[in-house]
């Protein structure tokens, strides 16, 4: 059969063409991706026998009970969730003016410069960036040095003395970890936000001004609601990336465990696959709740 005959064959059978288009990726996505996810979820309903350290392969909620009743485990979830929320809010606040400038004001070269500038850090190895930040944030690091030169050492000390977020140095405090997280995920917030703002026609802003809205009112009533789908998309990235990450908490910050580290430890050295699986269900549940709330507030109405 030659190429023309094949083309004709598919022209007359559009479903055959669709099948050819979709079956390979769906097979990949279905088995490798969803399949392994379900295998993981399934494992979370097993439990580990405390005496033999063997996995007991019968469905039980024992592991989940362990997850929600042991204070150490609850602490880990709360700590990770708090960090994810804080990082998401910080990313949104920093990204909004940048994305607004990129989408509404920058033209030509300036626009290209900003887009490349936002994406450039993503071309570098993630590990290199994390270790670079550890050096920047260290007690003898450049940030402490600059703060000293500017006479701001007392401010830095006051921040590090704050309960909860402080520590001996930035690189060993939750504050430092928060800074690194925010830096890492910022592009994932800026890009969808800028894309959402680009889609807002200029005439809507003119119409708002024309009807008597001052710039702040136009921003609140028109720009922000139309940017919300972008903010929602970006925040899903920053939120879920923070919930799942285990590299940053193990390189920078205070010694407290995060969900990702817990999953890593439990499935590795501890050999407690059921608990690791149960921990990895937590971000899925949290993100589902987050999306439900976002939907309730109309985040996807303008899509």
């Amino acid at each position, binding site marked *: 059969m030659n190429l023309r005959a094949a083309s004709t064959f598919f022209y007359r059978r559009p479903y055959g063409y669709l099948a050819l288009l979709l079956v390979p990726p769906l097979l990949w996505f279905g088995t490798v991706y969803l399949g392994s996810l379900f295998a993981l979820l399934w494992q979370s309903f097993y439990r580990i026998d405390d005496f033999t350290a063997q996995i007991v392969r019968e469905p039980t909620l024992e592991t989940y009970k362990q997850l929600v009743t042991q204070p150490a485990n609850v602490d880990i979830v709360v700590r990770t969730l708090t960090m994810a929320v804080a990082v998401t809010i910080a990313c949104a606040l920093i990204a909004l003016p940048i994305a607004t400038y990129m989408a509404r004001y920058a033209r030509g070269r300036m626009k290209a410069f900003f887009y490349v500038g936002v994406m450039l850090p993503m071309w570098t190895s993630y590990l290199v960036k994390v270790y670079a930040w550890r050096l920047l944030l260290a007690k003898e690091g450049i940030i402490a040095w600059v703060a000293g030169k500017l006479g701001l050492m007392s401010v830095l000390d006051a921040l590090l003395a704050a309960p909860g977020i402080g520590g001996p140095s930035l690189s060993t405090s939750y504050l430092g970890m928060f800074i690194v997280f925010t830096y890492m995920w910022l592009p994932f917030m800026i890009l969808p936000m800028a894309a959402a703002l680009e889609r807002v026609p200029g005439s809507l802003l003119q119409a708002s*001004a024309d*009807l*008597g809205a*001052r710039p702040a*009112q136009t921003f609140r009533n*028109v720009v922000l609601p139309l940017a919300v789908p972008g903010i929602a998309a970006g925040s899903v990235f920053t939120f879920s990336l923070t919930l799942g990450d285990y590299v940053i908490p193990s390189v920078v910050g205070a010694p407290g465990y995060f969900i990702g580290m817990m999953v890593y430890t439990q499935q590795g050295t501890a050999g407690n696959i059921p608990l690791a699986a149960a921990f990895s269900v937590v971000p899925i549940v949290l993100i589902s709740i987050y999306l439900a709330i976002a939907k309730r507030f109309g985040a996807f109405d303008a899509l």
Partner: protein
Amino acid sequence: MTSAIEFRAVSRVFGEVRAVDDVSFAIEPGEFFAMLGPSGSGKTSCLRLVAGFDAPDRGEVLLDGQDVSAVPPYDRNVNTVFQDYALFPHMTVLQNVAYGPRVKGVERGEREQRAREMLELVQLGALGERRPAQLSGGQRQRVALARALINRPKVLLLDEPLGALDLKLREEMQIELKSLQKKLGITFVYVTHDQGEALSMADRVAVFNKGKIEQLAAPRELYTRPRTEFVARFVGGANVASAAMAQQLGSSMPFALRGEHITVRAENMPAPPGALSTAGAVVAVQYHGAVSRWQVQLDTGALWSALVSEEDARSLSGIPVGGRVRLSWPREAAVDLAESPGA
């Protein structure tokens, strides 16, 4: 009486392009004023200067006698109906219409009451809870109109408001807009590239070309007494005789001649005494029902078109495309033209 809008020697330059080039005119309160011209002629730029989306490089724009060069759009008593309607997609129709009062701090009950009244005015009373995406083009147009009128502006600016509608709806809306304007007594400034729309609705029409006003006159005068070649062609679709051609025909000035004033005969038939005439070859005959449009390539080089009634067409039925014809017209039908200021 103070003019509703006045332009005093206004220029707006974008790089090398003079979008608005030393334009002066005044619009009286309650007038239906049309700005007519091809795209890029400066009419929309003028509208933006009135709305406050743009500021002039030179000259003054006055609203109600006040120079508004430093007044932002949200402090001008002027509202706009946008070409793409610019309805807020995340708000209902009612919220869209109530937006003006909302940002001015009118409380919810009152502004929604007023919005409902405006929707009644544009005959959309039942659709307040819909989203703009659920409306047809004509309905969106009406919402945009209601939203722009709710602030009771002194001047309503309309930027090609009917451009996206189909022909039948457009004709209905023309009548409706005109009667609405009479009812409300608001000054309408109507930007369009459709000469039919401008002529049928406006009290006065400014014809724009290359950033300048070629002629500002009442529709009838514009049609019957065009002053420049551009106006003759753009507004009336008239035939134009250039200076050189006019000389050959025994006229000292270039002139415009409407198709309905031309009589078509076979070339060997003499023109009636006192009439002017010229000869050429038929390029095409378009049948329009009551009249036919005969396109004739004149021997002088110009392409003219003559309108021939059904009655006269019968005597010409023997002339094929490519056949020779004589065009004649009474001397007084020709309108002398001045040099185009935009040229």
